[in-house]
C-alpha cells in the first residue's frame, strides 16, 4: 500500500504545498535555497511531464553534500534557529527529487507541515495567519490526492475544504481550553536576526537610526480606558550612567532586580496610580517598558533600584505583562549610595572643556535651578532638532553645543547630562520611548520604533530623581505631537521607507484605513498572539467562573466528549436507513427478521420469500399465509397504495415480525 506510486494528479498538489510552506521563511532564507527549491521542484515537474527522468544516486549524493555544505557555510557553523530551519527546508526540497511512492509523499508533506510551523517562529502577524490558511489547505489536498485511485469522482480540493471546515469547532475548543503552560525547558535555539530596537549603548547618532523604522515596539491599554497626556508618556527602558567620552552605557550597578511579592508596588489607596497592560514585541533583551514610579506586579517581572522593570529571561517571544505606576512618587529622596553617587557624577578626565567650563561658571548650588538654566539655554539659543546633524569631531559635546547646534534627542540628552555632571550633580541618560499613537476607537496606545527617545534624570536632595527633557525645550512639538511634526519641512519622516503608511497621515482616508488595519492587528495580538496562561484564566473566570486548572481540564474533556457525541450523532443521522414510504420500511424490517431464520434471497418476490419462511418456521404458518394473501392483494390488486389498505398491511407485517422474534431460530449459518 505504502509502496504504491503516487497518483499523477497528486504531484502538482504536493509541489504546490511544499512551495507554500516556504513562504513564511522568506525573510531569512538565503538566496541559494530558493534556487535549490526551484531546481528540485522544476526537475520533479519535468519528471511528472515525462520529459526527464529521476536523478541518479550519484547526483543525489552530490546534491545532499552540497546542500549541507551550503547551510554550514551560510550560517558559519553557528547553530541558530535559521540554520535549523534551513536544514529542514533543504531536506524537504531535496526529498522532492526522489518522490515516487506514497511513503515519499508522506515524508514530504509531514516535513512541509513542520516547515510551516517553524515559519510561525519568524512571522506571526495577521498576514502570516492568512498565508497559513491556503497552505494548510494545499497540504491536506495533496494528502487526499495521494490517496485517490483515479476513478473517484470526488475532488480532493473539495474534500480537503470540508475536512478543514468541519475540524474548526474542535480546533477552537482546544485552542481556548488547552492549558497553556510555560516553556518546559529553555529553548537553546534562537534566531540570530538582529532586532530593530533600543540597544544598551547610546552614541549620539544611534536613536536617529531607529527613527527610520515604523516597526511596532509595544502596545499599551490603560485600566482607566484613557491614556495619560502625551507629555507624561515617557516609557523608560534603560538608564545609561556610564560615559566613556563617546557613548553612554549602563554601568551595571542596577542589574539586580527584586521580584514580587518583595518588590515595591504603589500602595492600594495611592491617588494618581496608573494601572496598565503592555503587550511587547520580542527584543532579545531583559528590559521592559514602564512609566516612571513603576511597581512590580507580574511575578515574571522584577524591579531594579533605578525604577525599571526587568524580565527574568531575555524576551525572545512576544509577552504581555501588567504594570502599575505612581508617576509622581519620589525616588531615592533620602540619598544615594556612595557607589551610585560616584557613578552618576563620573566624567572622563579630559575632553569637552568648553562644556565643563560653561557648567562650572553657571552652577550656583541648586540642581533644579541649573537644570532649568540648561533648558532655557536650549530654548533661547538657536538650536535645531534634526535627524541629520552634521558630523562631529573629537570633542563632540563641545562641537554640538557651541558650533553645529543641530542634533537629535541623543545629542541633547547626552550634552545635558554631561553639563549636569560637570557641575557635580548626579545625572544619567534615560533611553526609552516617548508618546505613541492613541487609537480612541479600540482604546489602546501603539508605540513604534520611531517613538524612541532619550531624556535626562538628575538627582536633587529631598526630591530624589527628577526628569527633564531637553528635546522638549528645542522642539516642543516632538513631545506634544510626535516625531513627524517635529521634523522640519526639508526632512522627510521615514525617508528610508517611502511606502510606509505612516508617511501619509495627511491623507485622511488612507490614515483611516491604516488605523483600521492597525486595530485588526491589535486584536490579533491581543486575542491570538498573546493568548497565554494569564489571559486564559481571565477568560475562563469571566465566562464560566472557573477557578483552577482542574476545572479547565474537566471542561476540556467535557467539550471534547460533547463534540465526539455530536460527531457520532451526525454520522448516525447520515447513515440512518431511509425508506420511500412506511410500507417499504415495515417490509424491510420484516426481511431483517427473516434473515435470522435463514431466509434471504435478493432476487425473489415477496410471496416466494414468505413461502420459504413458512417452511422454515412452521409455527407461524397460519399467520404467514394470511399475510401472503393480504400482501398479494395490496401489491397487485388494490388501486390505492396509500391509506387504509396500507395501514392494514403494515400492521400485519409488524405483527408477523414480532411473532418471528418469539420463535427461536433453528437456522445456523453454514460453518466454513
Amino acid at each position, binding site marked *: 500500500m505504502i509502496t504504491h506510486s503516487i497518483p499523477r494528479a497528486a504531484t502538482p498538489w504536493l509541489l504546490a504545498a511544499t512551495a507554500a510552506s516556504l513562504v513564511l521563511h522568506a525573510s531569512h532564507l538565503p538566496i541559494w535555497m530558493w534556487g535549490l527549491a526551484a531546481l528540485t521542484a522544476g526537475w520533479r515537474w519535468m519528471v511528472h511531464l515525462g520529459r526527464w527522468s529521476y536523478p541518479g544516486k550519484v547526483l543525489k549524493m552530490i546534491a545532499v553534500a552540497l546542500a549541507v555544505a551550503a547551510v554550514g557555510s551560510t550560517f558559519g557553523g553557528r547553530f541558530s534557529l535559521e540554520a535549523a530551519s534551513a536544514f529542514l527546508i533543504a531536506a524537504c526540497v531535496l526529498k522532492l527529487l526522489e518522490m515516487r511512492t506514497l511513503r515519499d509523499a*508522506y515524508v514530504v508533506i509531514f516535513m512541509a507541515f513542520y516547515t510551516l510551523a517553524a515559519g510561525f517562529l519568524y512571522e506571526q502577524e495577521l498576514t502570516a495567519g492568512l498565508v497559513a490558511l491556503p497552505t494548510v489547505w494545499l497540504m491536506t489536498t495533496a494528502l487526499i490526492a495521494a490517496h485517490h*485511485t483515479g476513478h473517484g469522482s470526488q475532488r480532493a480540493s473539495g474534500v480537503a475544504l470540508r*475536512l478543514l471546515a468541519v475540524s474548526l469547532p474542535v480546533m477552537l475548543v482546544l485552542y481556548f481550553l*488547552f492549558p497553556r503552560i510555560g*516553556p518546559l525547558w529553555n529553548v537553546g535555539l534562537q534566531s540570530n536576526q538582529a532586532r530593530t530596537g533600543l540597544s544598551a549603548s547610546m552614541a549620539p547618532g544611534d536613536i536617529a537610526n531607529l527613527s527610520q523604522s515604523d516597526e511596532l515596539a509595544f502596545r499599551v491599554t490603560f485600566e482607566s480606558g484613557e491614556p495619560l497626556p502625551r507629555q507624561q508618556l515617557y516609557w523608560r527602558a534603560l538608564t545609561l550612567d556610564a560615559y566613556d567620552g563617546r557613548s553612554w552605557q549602563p554601568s551595571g550597578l542596577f542589574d539586580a532586580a527584586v521580584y514580587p511579592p518583595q518588590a515595591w508596588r504603589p500602595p492600594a489607596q495611592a491617588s494618581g496610580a496608573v494601572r496598565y497592560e503592555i503587550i511587547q514585541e520580542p527584543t532579545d533583551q531583559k528590559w521592559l517598558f514602564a512609566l516612571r514610579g513603576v511597581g512590580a506586579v507580574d511575578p515574571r517581572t522584577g524591579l531594579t533600584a533605578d525604577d525599571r522593570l526587568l524580565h527574568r529571561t531575555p524576551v525572545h517571544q512576544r509577552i504581555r505583562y501588567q504594570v502599575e505606576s505612581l508617576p509622581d512618587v519620589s525616588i531615592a529622596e533620602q540619598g544615594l549610595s556612595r557607589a551610585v553617587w560616584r557613578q552618576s557624577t563620573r566624567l572622563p578626565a579630559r575632553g569637552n572643556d568648553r562644556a565643563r567650563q560653561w557648567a562650572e561658571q553657571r552652577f550656583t548650588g541648586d540642581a533644579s535651578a541649573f537644570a532649568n538654566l540648561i533648558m532655557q539655554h536650549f530654548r533661547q539659543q538657536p538650536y535645531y532638532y534634526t535627524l541629520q546633524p552634521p558630523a562631529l569631531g573629537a570633542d563632540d559635546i563641545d562641537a554640538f553645543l557651541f558650533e553645529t547646534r543641530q542634533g537629535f534627542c541623543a545629542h541633547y540628552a547626552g550634552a545635558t547630562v554631561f553639563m549636569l555632571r560637570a557641575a557635580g550633580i548626579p545625572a544619567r541618560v534615560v533611553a526609552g520611548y516617548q508618546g505613541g499613537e492613541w487609537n480612541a476607537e479600540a482604546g489602546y496606545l501603539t508605540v513604534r520604533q520611531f517613538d524612541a527617545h532619550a531624556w535626562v534624570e538628575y538627582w536633587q536632595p529631598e526630591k530624589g530623581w527628577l526628569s527633564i527633557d531637553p528635546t522638549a525645550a528645542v522642539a516642543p512639538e516632538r513631545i506634544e505631537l510626535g516625531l513627524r511634526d517635529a521634523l522640519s519641512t526639508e526632512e522627510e519622516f521615514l525617508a528610508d521607507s517611502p511606502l510606509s503608511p505612516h508617511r501619509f497621515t495627511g491623507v485622511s482616508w488612507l490614515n483611516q484605513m491604516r488605523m483600521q488595519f492597525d486595530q485588526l492587528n491589535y486584536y490579533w495580538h491581543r486575542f491570538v498572539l498573546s493568548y497565554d496562561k494569564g489571559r486564559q484564566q481571565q477568560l475562563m473566570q469571566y465566562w464560566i467562573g472557573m477557578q483552577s486548572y482542574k476545572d479547565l481540564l474537566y471542561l476540556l474533556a467535557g467539550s471534547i466528549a460533547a463534540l465526539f457525541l455530536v460527531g457520532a450523532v451526525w*454520522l448516525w443521522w447520515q447513515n440512518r436507513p431511509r425508506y420511500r414510504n412506511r410500507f417499504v420500511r415495515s417490509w424491510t424490517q420484516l426481511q431483517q427478521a427473516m434473515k435470522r431464520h435463514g431466509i434471504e434471497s435478493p432476487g425473489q418476490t415477496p410471496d416466494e420469500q414468505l413461502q420459504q419462511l413458512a417452511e422454515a418456521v412452521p409455527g407461524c404458518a397460519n399467520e404467514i399465509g394470511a399475510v401472503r394473501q393480504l400482501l398479494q392483494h395490496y401489491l397487485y390488486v388494490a388501486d390505492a397504495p396509500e391509506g387504509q389498505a396500507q395501514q392494514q398491511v403494515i400492521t400485519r407485517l409488524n405483527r408477523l415480525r414480532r411473532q418471528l422474534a418469539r420463535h427461536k431460530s433453528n437456522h445456523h449459518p453454514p460453518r466454513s
Partner: protein
Amino acid sequence: MSGWRGALRQRWQRWMERRIPAAQQLTLGHRSIFIFPSVIGWLFAALLLVMLLTAINYQNSLIYGLVFWLFSMGITAMHFSFGNLSGLTLTAGHALPVFAGETIELPVRLTSDKAKAHQSLLLRYPDGPEVVADVNADADDTVATLSIVTQRRGHLDAGRFLLESRYPLGLFRVWSWIRLRYPVVVYPQPVWIPFRFAQGSEGEWLEGATSDSSGEQDFHGLRSYQAGDSMRQIAWKQYARGRGLVSKDFDSDDGASCWFDWEALAPLPIEERLSHLTAWVLKAHQNGWQYGLRLPGHTLPQHHSELHLEACLQTLALFGQEPI
C-alpha cells in the same frame, strides 16, 4: 504451538461468523467495520507532539493553533474514513462455475445507498490479487471482480475477503472481512483415464461404440447446413475450402450412446471416481455422444445437450452434498 495458533484462528473465525455472518448481500455498518490508526497515523501523532512541544517552548500561539487544527483534522478524518465504508452495500454477483483447481472470478457489486461516494476501496482475498474500486455518488453500481483459486468441488465457499480503505488522509485503516455467498457450484477436477468397459450386461456403460473409437459417431456424409445444427457438426475444413456451410450428418438415433456408472470405478475413493466421471462426461460431450449418468441415488437419462452437460456436472459436483 501451531495447534494453539489454529485454535486461535478458529476462535477468531467463529467470532467473525457471529459478527459478520455470510450473506449474499451485506450493508456495512457499525458491526462490520473495523477502524484503527495506521502506521502513518501514529507517525502523524508523533509529528503533532513535536509541534506541540515547539509551541509550548516558544510560547507561540500560531503553532498551537496549527497543532490543534491538524489534530482535529485527524479526528475528523477518522469519521470520514469510517463514513467512507459505512453504508456501502456489497452483493454477490453472478459467478460462472469452474472446475476445482481453476481460478474462479467472483464479481462483487458495490452499491452506495443515497448520494454518497465511497472512494479508493481495496478488495482482496487472502491469496488473491488486489482490486481497486471507487463507488461514485449518483452513478451506477461498480462491479469489482475478485478471483480465487478453487480447492474443492461442491458449493463454493469463497471464505472472507478483505475490504480496506485508507481514504482520505491515510491516517486510519478502515477494513472489514466479508464473506459473500455465491450460488455457484465448483465442478470436480476432471482427471482423465481411458474409458473402461464394465463387465456384465448390468454395468455395461459403453454401447454402440468401439473401444478404440476416436470419438466419432457413425458418419453419414455431408449435407447442406440447416439452422439449428450444432456448431460442432459443421465441417469446418470444407468451409475453409470455400464450399460454404455444410454440416456433418450424424445418425443420432443409433449413434454412440453410453452410460457412465459409479460402480464401474469401484474400488477407487469417492473423490477420484467423481474426477474420472467428470472427465468422461466432458469427453463424451465433446465427442457428441449420448450419455447418461448413474450415481447412487441419482440417475440422469441419456441425452446430449449443453443443459444436460451442466446437469451432469452439477450432479457430480454436489454428490454427497445437499442440493442448492
